[in-house]
C-alpha cells in the first residue's frame, strides 16, 4: 500500500463513471481536514456494497467494507464506541435507499454524528442495471423490462421528515461545490447526508440532462425548514424540471449518544459493579 491517500489496488470502475469524481472530492476534503489538524487515523470510511463501495479499497484510510444496506448501522456502532472519530459513509442509492432505508432514517432521526455520501446513480450498477428506489418512472432495467416500479422516492424529502439535521444535494460533475458540501457535512455536528447525483456511464448516463437541469439557488435559506421542504419538492427525481443543488437544510441539535457518559460513572470498573451487586443480593 502506498503512503498517499490512494492505495495501489487496481481501480475497476468503468471509464467515465461518476465514482471517480466523488473519490477525488472526498480525497481532497480529507487532505483539507488533515491540513486543518485532523489526524488521518481519526477518519473512518464505512461503505455498503455496490460500485460505490470500492471506495474502501481505493482510499488509503481506515475503513470497514460492510454489508449491503448496513453501512450506516455499522457506522453508528463506531460512533457509539468512539465519538471522537470522523465517520464517513459512502453508500449507494440501491444500497441505502432500498435495503438500508431503515438504518439511514433512524441514524438521521437520532442525529448520529456521521456523514453519509449517497452515490445516487439511480440504478444498480454492479448487478447490471436493475431499477432502484430513485430510478425515473420511465426507467426499464433488466428486472423490469415491461413494468414500472412506481414513482421515485424523494430521499431528501424523506430525510427532512425524520429530522435530519444536514441535507445537501451535490452532482458528481460539479467538483468544487461537491467538495464544499462534503466538507460542511463532515464538520457539521450531527448527522449529515449528501445526496450526490452521479452518472453511471454504463447503465444510466444522464450527463446531458443533469448538466442542463442543475442549478444553485441563490436565495435559499437552509435554516428555514419550510423553505427546505419547498426546495426538495422542486425536483421529484422524475420530471425534467430544475434540480437545485447545495445545502437544503441545516440545523444544530443534540447529537446522539447512548448509555451514560463516562463522567457520570459512580464506579470506575465493572468489577466494582459486580461486587456491589452481590452484596445487595445477599
Amino acid at each position: 500500500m502506498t503512503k498517499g491517500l490512494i492505495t495501489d489496488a487496481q481501480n475497476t470502475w468503468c471509464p467515465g463513471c461518476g465514482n471517480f469524481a466523488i473519490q477525488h472530492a472526498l480525497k481532497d476534503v480529507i487532505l483539507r481536514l488533515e491540513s486543518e489538524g485532523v489526524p488521518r487515523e481519526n477518519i473512518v470510511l464505512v461503505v455498503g456494497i455496490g460500485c460505490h463501495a470500492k471506495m474502501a479499497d481505493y482510499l488509503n484510510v481506515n475503513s470497514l467494507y460492510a454489508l449491503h444496506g448496513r453501512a450506516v448501522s455499522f457506522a453508528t456502532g463506531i460512533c457509539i464506541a468512539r465519538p471522537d472519530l470522523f465517520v464517513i459513509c459512502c453508500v449507494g442509492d440501491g444500497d441505502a435507499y432500498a435495503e438500508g432505508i431503515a438504518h439511514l432514517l433512524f441514524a438521521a432521526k437520532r442525529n448520529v454524528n456521521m456523514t453519509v455520501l449517497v452515490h445516487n446513480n439511480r440504478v444498480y450498477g454492479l448487478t447490471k442495471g436493475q431499477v432502484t428506489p430513485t430510478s425515473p418512472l420511465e426507467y426499464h432495467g433488466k428486472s423490469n423490462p415491461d413494468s414500472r416500479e412506481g414513482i421515485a422516492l424523494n430521499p431528501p424529502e424523506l430525510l427532512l421528515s425524520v429530522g435530519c439535521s444536514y441535507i445537501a444535494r451535490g452532482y458528481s460533475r460539479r467538483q468544487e461545490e461537491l467538495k464544499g458540501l462534503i466538507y460542511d457535512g463532515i464538520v457539521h455536528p450531527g448527522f449529515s447526508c449528501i445526496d450526490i447525483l452521479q452518472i453511471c456511464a454504463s447503465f444510466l448516463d444522464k450527463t446531458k440532462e443533469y448538466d442542463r437541469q442543475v442549478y444553485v439557488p441563490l436565495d435559499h435559506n437552509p435554516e428555514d425548514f419550510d423553505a427546505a421542504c419547498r426546495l426538495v419538492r422542486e425536483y421529484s427525481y422524475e420530471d425534467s424540471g430544475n434540480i437545485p443543488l447545495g445545502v437544503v437544510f441545516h440545523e444544530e441539535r443534540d447529537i446522539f449518544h447512548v448509555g451514560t457518559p463516562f463522567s457520570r460513572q459512580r464506579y470506575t470498573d465493572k468489577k466494582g459493579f459486580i461486587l456491589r451487586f452481590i452484596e445487595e443480593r445477599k
Partner: protein
Amino acid sequence: MDGCSVLIGGKAGSGINRAGQTIARMFTQLGYYAYMHYDYPSLIRGGHNFSLIRASTYPVGTHRSGIDILLAMDSPTLSLHRHHCKRDALVIYNSDTVRSDTGSAIPLKSIVARNDGMHVMENTAMIGALASAIGMDWDDCGYVISQEMRKFTQKNLAIARDAFRMQSEKKELKRLSQSPGILLSGNDAVSLGLLSAGLDGYIAYPMSPSTGILHFMADASGETGIQVFQPESEIAAITMAEGMAYAGAKAAVGTSGGGFCLMTEALSMAGMAEIPITIVLAQRSGPSTGTPTYTAQSDLHFAIHAGHGEFPRFVIAPGDAEQAYVWAGHALSLSWQFQVPSILLTDNTLSEGVYTVPPDMLQKRIPASRPVSVHLWEGTEEYQRYRDTEDGISPYASPPLFGAVIKGNSKSHDEWGISVDDGMQLASMTRKQMKKIPSMKDSVSQLKPVLIGGNPDSDICLISWGSNAPLCREAAQVMGIKSVQPIVVHPFPASEMTAATCCSVMTFLLEDNYSGQLADICEAHGIPVDIRLPRFDGRPSAIDQLIEDLWGLVG
C-alpha cells in the same frame, strides 16, 4: 420437611413472578438452595401464571412435580394444580375469591383493603401466610420482604404481618445453618458474566426470553459506563455491535431464534471480517414466532451452522446460572482472543429460571477486564489487519492508531484488507482463518468443556445439554448413574465426550427438541446414543417424572 416445593398461581399481572422470587429468597434465608421456574403465557393481563419454587439441602436447578404447598391466589390455580400436590400437601387459598373445603382460608383481598394496599399486594399477604406455615420467624420474613419490596415497604410489611398471624396450619421447614448463596436468574447471570469479561456495549432488540438481559444492562449502564442501546431491528443491533467491535469496544447482542435469523448476514460478516462479537441466543419454542414464552432447545444445529460460507465460531451452552455467569465471560473473551463470533446458547428455562449461586464463586471468577491474549499490533512494521500468522490470528488494532490504516472487510480480501478475488489469495485467506480451529479447540479443552456428574463409574450414561443438565445431574445422582454435559457444543469437544461416554453400555440423551439434535452430533462423532428422550411441548421436565421414566427404561 427437609426440602419443599411450593406453587403459587394467579392471573397474569398479579405479581406471580415477583412473589416466586420472594419465596425463593425466603428459602435461601432459611439456608436452602432455591430454584424457581416461572410459567406464563404470552399476555400481559389475565390468563394463568404460576411460579414453582423448590427448596433443597443441595444445589438444584430443576423443579419437582410433587407440590408440598399450593398457594392459590385464584380458583384456576386450585383446579389446575391440585392433582400435582402430594397427598399431605397444604393448600392456602384466597378465601375472598376461591371456594375450597380443605386448606387454610386467608382473605387476601380483605387484608389488603384493611391496610389500604393495592390489589397487587395480595401476593404479599400470601407470602406472609406461607412464611408462617413453614415456621419462619417473623423477623426473617420481615427482612426478606423489606429486601425484596423496596417500594411501599411499610405497607407490604403490615399486609404480610396480618396474614402471617392469621395462618395457623403448619408444614414446617427446619432452619439450616448454612447460607448457600444468592439468587440469580439465567439472564442476570449472563449479564454479570459478560460484564466480568469487560463488556463495553450491549445492543439488543427486545425478544423473549432474552429481554431480561437488555433490562439488566440498561440498569447497569449508569454505574458501569457500558453503552446500552435498543435500535430499530435485530439487524441493526448486530451490525452496530460489530461497528463497536471494529472500533475496539467489546460488544454483545442478545436475542431469540427469530432475531438470530435476522442476524445471520452479519454473523457471516463477523466470520469473514474476523470481528469479535458475542451473541446470546436464548432459545424458545419455534419455528417462527412459535410460543414466545415457552422453552425449547431446537436451535442447536442452527447456531452451529447459521450464516453463509464457512468460518470458525464458538457455540457454548451453559446449563444453570453459575455456568451462565462463567461461560458468558468465556464466550466474550474467547471471541476476542480468536477474533471470531461466539454464540452463547441459552433457553427459556435457563434465561428466566432463578438459581442459587454461591457469591464467593462470582467474586473469584471476575477475570481481568481484557483477555491478556488479545493479539495487538507491535507497531514495528506496516499494519496488516489480516496478516497471516502461525496460528491464523492476526494482530488486532482499532482506530485511531497512529501510522496504521485499519481495513476491515466483509469481502474476500488480502492481508491488508483490500478486496481480492484471485484464487490463490482466496485459498490462503481461508486457510489462515481455519488455522485458528486447532487452537480454539485447545483453549476450550483447558476450560473443561464437558461436565461429568452422578456416579462416574456407572456404565449407564445420561447425556444432556443446556438447562436440562442440572436436571439430569440430579437424576443421575439419585439413580447412581453417570451424567454427561457438553458445555461447549462447537467446536465439539469430541475427545472429552468420547472419554466421558466410552465405558457406557447404555446411553440416554434428553433434550427439548423433536429430532434429537445433540444426539445427531454425538453419533456423528462416534458416540452412540441408545435412547433419545425428546421433549417438545415447551415445558421443562420435572425431576421426579424424569427419574420415573428412566427407571422404567433401565428396568
